[in-house]
């Protein structure tokens, strides 16, 4: 669970800010609660991973400046995914493994508005056949400067259990997060956001279903490929910086939302994300939202397509916290992703709105070694509706 700011409820910041919020999130300004249903279909091409998600979200003012949110999600995951083994000789198709799972998750947040400060306490729970997660979060938003400045502070922690199929007891994984952020109104039509977040993970951080392969000469000229479970470092520290600019164009009935995200972690991964959204109101009931997103990351220092050309001798009794570390998970390789999509939001009445979004997602390797067959292309369909009261 990452630190996320609670939903912004201070709608009276300023005329410009209010306009933007109204444009991006059309809802009755005095709503006391809402109920949303969301459905997502993530489908990779070529019979690979497909995820169907049903989610229910409820939000209610409780009076006395208290507000409660609750969300429940069920994911069904099925399909083939690379297991880390390289493509056999003469082929460029990496080895895929079928997987099936189901995830049930829910979270709830109770917040209270004090004078100038909103404090939100959250709890999240998630359960899969081989993964159990529990998390707590505390976030605050404080207004300054006649509500033209917001300071976001957040901390969170998770206590997870991982079922590693080759270990009897469940293994532990813990994470601590902290975030500080500022949202500053620059003009009635423009505001900027800067967030800095830090996360420290520890425990079992490998993927028990990923393999690495090393070919060993077992007789003169005869090489046998041996596979081993991957072994990642037991600690990981992440830093994320986000800068975002939001600008409204009242004459166009539109707004632009641009952001840049920098990521670095102790696996020596550097990543950059650039995102651009255009929000266009059409008439009084429709908003169109085209979106572009590009992502670029360097490889983790222990990623190898295979271990053949390395001096690494994999070990059998993983996890070994002192190393050697190695993984052939393509998600840790040097890669780029591209996402483009279109979202349509329709306000059906003063209390009901619906939305549908379609995104195309493509991941491409850039190390020139890992075959393109490791990287997925996906179509993502989101739809849902919200009832407010």
């Amino acid at each position: 669970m990452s630190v996320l700011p609670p939903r912004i409820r201070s709608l009276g910041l300023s005329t410009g800010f209010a306009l933007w919020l109204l444009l991006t999130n059309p809802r009755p300004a005095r709503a006391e609660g809402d109920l949303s249903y969301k459905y997502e279909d993530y489908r990779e091409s070529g019979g690979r991973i497909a995820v169907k998600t049903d989610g229910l979200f409820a939000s209610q003012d409780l009076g006395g400046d208290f507000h409660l949110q609750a969300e429940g999600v069920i994911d069904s995951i099925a399909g083939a995914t690379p297991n880390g083994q390289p493509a056999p000789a003469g082929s460029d198709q990496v080895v895929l493994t079928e997987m099936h799972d189901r995830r049930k998750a829910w979270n709830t947040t109770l917040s209270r508005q004090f004078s100038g400060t909103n404090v939100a306490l959250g709890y999240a729970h998630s359960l899969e056949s081989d993964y159990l997660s529990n998390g707590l979060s505390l976030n605050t938003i404080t207004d300054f400067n006649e509500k033209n400045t917001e300071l976001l502070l957040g901390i969170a922690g998770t206590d997870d259990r991982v079922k590693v199929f080759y270990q009897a007891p469940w293994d532990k994984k813990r994470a601590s997060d902290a975030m500080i952020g500022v949202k500053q109104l620059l003009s009635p039509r423009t505001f900027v956001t800067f967030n800095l977040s830090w996360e420290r993970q520890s425990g079992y951080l490998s993927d028990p279903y990923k393999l690495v392969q090393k070919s060993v000469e077992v007789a003169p000229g005869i090489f046998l490929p041996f596979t081993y479970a991957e072994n990642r470092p037991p600690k990981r520290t992440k830093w994320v910086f986000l800068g975002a600019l939001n600008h409204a164009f009242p004459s166009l009935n539109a707004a632009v939302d641009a952001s840049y995200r920098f990521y670095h972690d102790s696996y020596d991964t550097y990543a950059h994300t650039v995102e651009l959204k255009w929000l266009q109101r059409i008439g009084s009931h429709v908003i169109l939202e085209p979106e572009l997103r590009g992502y670029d990351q360097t490889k983790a220092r222990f990623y190898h397509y295979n271990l053949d050309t390395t001096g690494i001798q994999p070990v059998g009794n993983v996890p070994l916290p002192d190393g050697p570390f190695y993984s052939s998970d393509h998600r840790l390789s040097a890669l780029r992703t591209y996402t483009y999509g279109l979202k349509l939001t329709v306000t059906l009445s003063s209390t009901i709105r619906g939305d549908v979004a379609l995104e195309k997602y493509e991941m491409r390797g850039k190390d020139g070694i890992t075959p393109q067959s490791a990287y997925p292309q996906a179509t993502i369909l989101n739809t849902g509706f919200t009832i407010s009261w």
Partner: protein
Amino acid sequence: MPPVASTSLRPAAATGATPAAPLRRLGFPAMGTTCEIQYAAPGGRDRSDDFEQAVVAWVQAFEAKYSRFRPDSLVSRINAAAGHDWVEVDDDMERLLQLCDTMYTMTQGVLDPTALPLIRLWNWKADRPRIPTAEEIAAARRLVGWPKVQRAPGRIFLPEPGMALDFGGFGKEYAVDVAAQIATEHGLADVLVDFGHDLRALGAPPGRPAWHIGLEDPRRPGTPWASVGLRGGRGIASSGDYVRCFELNGRRYGHILDPRTGWPVANGCSQATVIAGTCLQAGVLSTTAFVLGVPQGIDFIQACPDAEGLLLTNQIRAQTRGFSHYVVS
């Protein structure tokens, strides 16, 4: 670790319709079983001869070095030195010891290369088998445990007299994979390696889509109840205790032991069959799944990347989601 059952998987390709081109066959006794390799030989006699000489030589050298039944083997020397001497080992042996590490860890101790004292105790080959006493089992178990084995670069030491290594639980499967690799290095693409019915299939028989492997019916040994189609380098192995067993006082005691308890597996499972990327993986998984039984054995196979499997008990047939993709009849 007892060997896997040797009677449950039978190549069916040669007994079906006549393939478009003749297959060459190589058969030779080794590792206490019959080793057979069927292959298409587009390179002619010379390449075939080179391949056959290479594979037979490698298997004989492998057996001579690692068989516990050969008193002059490296494994026998390590076992003889148990409790008093370190023994030097070469890179080949280091590699197999690392394999032992992997297997012991991945199977949560179900596959333990030091289980020989228990295997010797439960001697199902004896003329008059008997059930060991609890004290005997406890004493044997004290000599079992891969983590007790002491290793240093280039050396190994079994710290207790009576401790012993046995690669019988995976050696044949390992040899199958090496034989398949030797075939590949000799330019052979369509090969079925069958060492005592632990198999690896490369390509397919000429003119046919896949190698067909019969799955033996545990209730009627010698009769297949289904067959699977293999190609693309897949390995298959089966574990069962319906042939090698003895009965005493109305109870059947199979030859597959659970090193964690010291007793033969008695969970109702009669056969476990696994298809995986290599024969070694298939063999390790089939034995582990057999010991774990239903449903844990199926869950274990399901969790392993690139593996499918089937468990038979007296009452039910349990299989992973993708196993049916391989069943052809």
